[in-house]
């Protein structure tokens, strides 16, 4: 069960590197939220109502519903549709495969007995995939998606190393990320209104 969910998660990351429509990106993020929910539930040793409630809020409500809704709202308001050039798709696919190999290699050297080696590797792959999206794509919306992929990777990472932070801290972290997404979404819309673009190349006017 866990292995199939992890394989599905890897497939979403590979697909994300090839997808060119932003709605697809948003759907993939929602799917990742669902997969993380499945993984978190599958890893629970015994039933705790509070813990269960928090997992539902953090993965299902927050990652699979609220964030995709915010992103869809931004897509509608800014009328952005897809990434601009197809060449960056091939490049990011190649980079994604390289990242997968690199993740496996790093995991091989880094893991110890206390960590779940497969989740660790996939979490690392997710982090690198997010960074690749940020570096390779030109539109800032894709950067926002990259940031969310990194956040999902961090969540998977915390499961891989078996860290359970206190509930209050988890809640604070979740709210922090939510506010960051809202602020970023707001500024993205502002950028579209004021600068009539959401290309990262337009963000080069500040220089020495």
């Amino acid at each position, binding site marked *: 069960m866990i292995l199939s969910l992890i394989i599905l998660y890897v497939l979403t990351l590979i697909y994300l590197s090839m997808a060119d429509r932003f709605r697809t990106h948003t759907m993939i993020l929602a799917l990742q939220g669902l997969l993380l929910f499945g993984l978190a539930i599958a890893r629970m040793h015994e039933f705790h109502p509070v813990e269960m409630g928090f997992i539902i809020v953090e993965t299902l409500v927050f990652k699979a519903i609220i964030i995709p809704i915010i992103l869809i709202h931004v897509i509608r308001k800014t009328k952005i549709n897809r990434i601009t050039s197809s060449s960056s798709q091939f490049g990011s696919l190649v980079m994604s495969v390289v990242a997968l190999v690199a993740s496996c290699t790093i995991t091989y050297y880094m893991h110890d007995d206390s960590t779940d080696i497969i989740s660790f590797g996939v979490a690392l792959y997710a982090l690198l995939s997010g960074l690749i999206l940020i570096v390779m794509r030109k539109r800032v919306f894709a950067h926002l998606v990259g*940031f969310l992929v990194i956040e999902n990777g961090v969540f998977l990472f915390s499961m891989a190393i078996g860290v359970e932070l206190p509930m209050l*801290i988890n809640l*604070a972290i979740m709210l922090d990320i939510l506010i960051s997404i809202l602020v970023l979404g707001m500024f993205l819309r502002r950028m579209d209104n004021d600068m009539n673009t959401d290309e990262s190349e337009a963000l080069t006017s500040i220089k020495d």
Partner: protein
Amino acid sequence: MLTYLIISVILAVLPLVVRTERLTNIIAALFFLVQVVGIALVFYFDRVDTVLLSIFRADSMALLFHALMTAVLGFSLLHSSSYLKAEGISTRSYKAYYTLLMLLAVAITCVYYSDNIAMTWVFLELTTICSAGIIYHREFKQSLEATWKYVFVCSTGIAMAYLGILLLSTVATEGALDYASLKEAIVEGNPLYLKVAFLLMVVGYSCKMEIFPLYTVGVDANYAAPAPASAFISTALVNAGFLSIMRIYNLYASAGEVFVWARHLLILIGVLSLAVGAMFLRRANNYKRFLSYSTVENMGIVAIGLGIGGVALWAAVFHVVCHTFVKSSMFFHVGIMRHVYDSYSINRIGNYMNINRVGAIGFIVGTLVLLAFPPSPLFVSEIMIFSEIVTVGKWWLLILMLVLMCVVLYSIWSRSLRLSYHSNQDELHLTAVNRRLSYIASIPLVVAVVLGLWQPKFLTDMIDTIITDTPIVKAKTEVVEQNIVVFAEKQQPAVEHTAPNTSAVPVVEEPTENEDVNAENLE
């Protein structure tokens, strides 16, 4: 603490519901008063080192930096009023600016007092969100660009830092993430995990401390924000980044050989920051960016001080304290300068000595203090860092630092003179000068110069307490460790001669070649 937080937050959001700018100013004054009373109460009731709300602790480091933040905040609120009026902004924007500045102050205070590594992260992320509104306040194209970059890079960087915290928390017993518990547990940690965790946390927090590699967003933020807010961001917020890294540094002090690796990393980051600062100070054509790169350079020196350890550790903390006064004063002067010229352009503006003599003299004196000319307090701290570098035998580092600092000296001094004595390059619309503000802007500078001549006992005691949290590194073998301690004790009079107020400075942590020879002799 809860009462203090509730009152502060209520006062911070209160400007949003009042109608006039005058009422906003009164609320801001009350907010400042609450900060002063808060610090005074901690001292009066002797609550130093007590745990508050189970996630905060009022230790010396938090109190010192909270006091510094409050001092800068007072000046910042005062200058903001005249700055915003000169900008001619709407009452709504005026109120929003004050609200955000006060909320940022609350978030920074929480970072200072946080006793939990995860909560420090949470509050640092909160500072990003509060800063975003201030950076975007002027609502022009570049401010939008700077804000986007700031929020995005800080969020991504801090996500990386969170990854580091997760790796570090593998050593935590029963999920306890307070610094004291982690310090005990870190000894048992996987060295590779600890190294990666340190790297990720320092890289993540570098966007706040304005050091290599994520320093750029801080520079852009200072460029876009109103000058009094830039003064606050480049001192109080930078100090929050420093304090977060300092707490991690103290944690790692009990991590044996990982700590040695971490200190080497800090030296590398410090040298790179110093190099970047020196390089871009030559290129900058905007006084605010210019001062921001100077912050990068100074924080680079601080990182080197942390990396070297010993007396340099004391000097690093003292450097940050004094830098807060000097840099805030310089930013306030630059803000006044903008009133006059309506520009920050280095190549365009000049003749400031004839237009505003008080401001020009303040700026020149500030430049000299920034360049560590005696009696600058930065001279004291830099000499202490250099002496410690010589003591540990890292001559290459000393030479590299001196070369880079010569470039910095030339760049800063030539630009400072250009502002005061060169003629304006084109037609400028000069406005009336507010000399009263220039005098007020010079007050932190005077405080800095006084600190250069005389360091009050309470300050040196506080810094001593801060650095004694860092114990002596355990050497690989017991014999070597004993010998190093004996050797360091023999060296102590020489160290005290250079730095009279460093009685509590931990002894040299890392065995150098000379020490190894002495250790053998002693054996």
